[in-house]
Structure formats: structure tokens, C-alpha cells
């Protein structure tokens, strides 16, 4: 059995100054990741192969759906990026013949190694919420950020700040249009030109926040 987790904290950054001279600050950033795992062997009738299950929960706090980057002196318009959504994942690893050495289970030697180690252990995982059959099979409603408190917030999005290309070929991050944030892939220039009309209110959803696309909004 092993447990772990991460905690990050960032103080309030200044994001602008009002016409009256007072400074605007963005909220404090706090975020928590957790992992819980069990390493053992399958039953004898299944060959007693080494197996490992690991539950990861990332971005648990999600105190705000977006991070303020800048706020105009009038106090209304602001620039922001959406925060990554909370994610829950359960992964299962089965060794097929080659036993892992003890060294592979030791903690990493540096801070970065530790983070990479936890990420690598999620290889092959699937988000359970996207596998309907799993949820039906085990008869429970899995954690779903879409139905949690604060998971949907309406903001007035005036325009996208810029277009962002994903490092993966063919992926262009979506933009808010027609009442929703687009998904990755398949988006054309026409999609984000449609954002030109200001004053419309678009729902900003956590689940579509992976694009980290800066946008201009109004409080």
C-alpha cells in the first residue's frame, strides 16, 4: 500500500491598478493532488503475477475556474486562462513476465523525478467517467467534475486573446462559441472568428479547460 500527494501554493499576484490608484490582486492559488495505490500479486489461479492499482486525483481544490492574468483599470475587463479541471483516474498495471526491480519502486532522486514517476504510473489509464460501461458495471456514480459545485460558471467572454496550437499535430484548441467551449481537434479559423460578437455570455466549463486559452472577460 502506498500513498502520496502534492500541494502547491502561490501568493496573490498583482494583476492591475484601478483608475483610483489601488492595485488589483488575483486570488491565492492553492492546489492539491493525491494518489493512493496498492502493489501486490494476483490470486494463484491467475498466475500470481505482480499487479498494481493506483488512484490519482489531480487539481482537487479548483477554487476558481480561471486564473486572472491582467485586469484593466476600469475594474471590469480582465484577461484570464482557464484552469485545468479536477481529474480522477484509476489505473491498473499487470506485469507480464518481467518482474519490476526494487529500484523502480524507489523514490526519485529529484523533485522532478518524483513528479514524473507519479505521472508515468498513470500510463494506460482511462478516465472512468468516460467509460460508461465501467460505471454501470460497478453500480456507482463516479466522481465527476461536471456535477460538482462551482463546476459551471457563466462569464462574459468578449474575445479570445490569441489562438493556441497544441504541440500535437492537428490539434488546435477550441474556443468558446455557440454557448460552449470547443473540444480539441477539428476546429477551423471560422470557429474562433465567430467569437467576435462581444457581450455574449458563454458558459465556462472546467472539463473544457485543458486548452489554457487566454480570453478576455468581463466581471
Amino acid at each position, binding site marked *: 500500500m*502506498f*500513498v*502520496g*500527494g*502534492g*500541494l*502547491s*501554493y*502561490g*501568493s*496573490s*499576484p*498583482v*494583476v*492591475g*491598478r484601478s*483608475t483610483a490608484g489601488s*492595485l488589483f490582486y*488575483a486570488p491565492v*492559488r492553492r492546489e492539491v493532488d493525491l*494518489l493512493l495505490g496498492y502493489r501486490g500479486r494476483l490470486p494463484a489461479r491467475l498466475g500470481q503475477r505482480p499487479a498494481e492499482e493506483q488512484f490519482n486525483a489531480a487539481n482537487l481544490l479548483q477554487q476558481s475556474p480561471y486564473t486572472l*492574468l*491582467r485586469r*484593466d*483599470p*476600469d475594474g471590469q475587463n480582465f484577461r484570464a486562462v482557464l484552469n485545468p479541471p479536477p481529474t480522477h483516474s484509476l489505473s491498473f498495471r499487470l506485469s507480464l513476465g518481467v518482474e519490476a526491480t526494487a529500484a523502480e519502486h*524507489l*523514490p526519485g532522486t529529484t*523533485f522532478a523525478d*518524483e*513528479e514524473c*514517476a*507519479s505521472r508515468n504510473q498513470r500510463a494506460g489509464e482511462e478516465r472512468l467517467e468516460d467509460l460508461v460501461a465501467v460505471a454501470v458495471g460497478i453500480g456507482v456514480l463516479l466522481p465527476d467534475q461536471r456535477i460538482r459545485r462551482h463546476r459551471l460558471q457563466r462569464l462574459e467572454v468578449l474575445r479570445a486573446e490569441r489562438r493556441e496550437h497544441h504541440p500535437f499535430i492537428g490539434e488546435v484548441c477550441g474556443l468558446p462559441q455557440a454557448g460552449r467551449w470547443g473540444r480539441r481537434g477539428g476546429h477551423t479559423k471560422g470557429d474562433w472568428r465567430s467569437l467576435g460578437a462581444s457581450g455574449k455570455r458563454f458558459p465556462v466549463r472546467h472539463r473544457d479547460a485543458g486548452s489554457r486559452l487566454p480570453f478576455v472577460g468581463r466581471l
Partner: protein
Amino acid sequence: MNLTANLTPGWRLLGRVSVSDSVEINLLKRSRQSAALVLPLWRTAGAQAVVTNAGLTVAQEIAANEASLAATTAVEDQGTIGHREFEFRAFTR
């Protein structure tokens, strides 16, 4: 500052704390120079109602320019937009 604690042979705790300061200075040096050259012309009474290619009047362009300048240089000489002075991260497993 980075701290690593090997609490047990299989339990390691890592922490990182940073305290920093940042101040923006001399922002938009070239833009301010060019704006200083053209603004006197833009501000002439006869130019105010002229509509630019963007569909805005010169008066509106001037207002937009001033608003952009004010937003961009809001904390010049005082700090840096978006800079978090204190950050802390920890990881354990």
C-alpha cells in the same frame, strides 16, 4: 530553497519554497516614442471624427490607445503583473 526528507526508507518528502520580487521598468519604450510623435496630429480638432480602417474614429482610437497603455503599464516601477512573490510546493510518496 529545496528540502528533501527521507522520513523512512520508503517515504520521501520534497518541498520547494521560493520568495522573489520583480519590478517592471521601461515598458513600451518604442511604442511610447511613436505615440508621442503621432498623438499631437491625431488630437487636432479636424481629425477627431475621421473614421479609420478599423471602423473607429480617431478619437476612439486615441481612447483605446490610452486605455491599453494604462493597462499595460499599470504597475510599472511598482511590481510585475502576474508575479507571485511567495510560492510553495510539496510532494510526498
